[in-house]
């Protein structure tokens, strides 16, 4: 049976411009998936998500295999991730719109 973990990275964060999740160690995991739930949607906005990786939890770079995902800041979305190495974080940026959405962000990990 494979080890697994769901981590609630943000429980309800107001997206004010740019938000980056806290560094999370993922060396043990072989697959991952982000979920982003707009607890308070911001229709008419564009929010961009980038999956980022790191060699040390300090310096970060976009995952080369995952194109930035742009959402309309409503509902629930997910981003599958593979070959991510030892650290993961999710960068969120509001690209347009005036109302700040509130996000719940989950990271699912599995061996």
């Amino acid at each position: 049976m494979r080890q697994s973990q769901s981590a609630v990275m943000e429980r309800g964060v107001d997206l004010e411009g740019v938000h980056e999740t806290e560094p999370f160690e993922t060396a043990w995991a072989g697959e991952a998936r982000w979920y982003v739930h707009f607890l308070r949607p911001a229709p008419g906005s564009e929010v961009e998500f980038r999956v980022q990786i790191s060699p040390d939890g300090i310096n970060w770079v976009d995952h080369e295999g995952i194109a930035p995902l742009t959402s309309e800041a409503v509902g629930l979305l997910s981003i599958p991730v593979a070959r991510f190495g030892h650290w993961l974080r999710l960068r969120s940026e509001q690209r347009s719109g005036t109302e700040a959405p509130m996000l719940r962000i989950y990271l699912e990990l599995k061996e």
Partner: protein
Amino acid sequence: MRTRPDHDGKESQVTTPDVASTAASLRDAIRSSDLRLSKYNPLPRILTFDDFNYGAHGWVELGGNYNGRGDLDSMDEHFRDFRPPQLSNQNFFDVGTHGGMTGTYSLKLATRKAPGHTATAIRRLTMSGRGLLQIEAYLAWKVEANLGGGEEANRYGDITWDANSHPSEAQFGAFTVATDLSHDGIRYHNVMRFQNSDWDGHIVQKWMYPTVAEPTPHERFRGEHDYGRYTDFTAPNPDDWRFVSDRRQEACYNEVPTKVNWHYLRFLIDTSTRSNVELQFNNDVYDLRDVAVPPYGEKYESLESLLNFYFSVRTLGPHRNFLFLDSVVISADW
């Protein structure tokens, strides 16, 4: 010394205390030959043995209480962000993977870079007896390494870098081991905190305990308090904390934030008297029998025989503080 009759009614030469003694000796011998358990000194019954090479073993982020709709606003603000624990291979910028005391992985509690923020992981059981209860762990505490900056990065609080002491040591606030117990209508917490530094980065390095019970969501529901996000949830008022001893607890931070030396911790309590008994930290042992455990004044429903342990880590500055647990053993004498 009592004797007992054998199967045909004659008195046996084997006495009950002797049998108990033999059983204890056998248990010790078996445990001392177990490569993973021999570093521990558990009470007779091991309730849990958490080796974090094999998952988080039920250690989970402490969560607040929420209403029937799951509204975030119904949760105490200072209970909303205790952070998910991480299975860490201790990956550092300068040496790569440090690994655990045994194997590769340890459990890591990590704060945000926000003064006062606390990360907390809890283990939830119930008790099937009363008496001695003990938690043991091999642990280490570190601060996130800093890369870059000017000369100011070489100083923090009491410490200026001298190639022996490193300013990150003064950036670590505190870690805490504690219980949440309830039986026969009375709820209480046994709490021991290693206070490493103060808000200004002055070295403290002493064990502390609170003289009041932890504020609860039920009290907030009744309008008795409403604490902010970075409140010390264990006991918010600094005046409600006392030192176990005025003697400084020296330890092995080991100079820089990326060298990890594991420390032994053992916290013994007695649920039959709802009291503290003893704290061991490496080869220092503190007699805690005179350290009172403040109970709640009211009965809590839905918590009969509650047996929780938690570890927390609290930063007092804008630095991520980490508590690493190599492994944890909870044992009892019932």
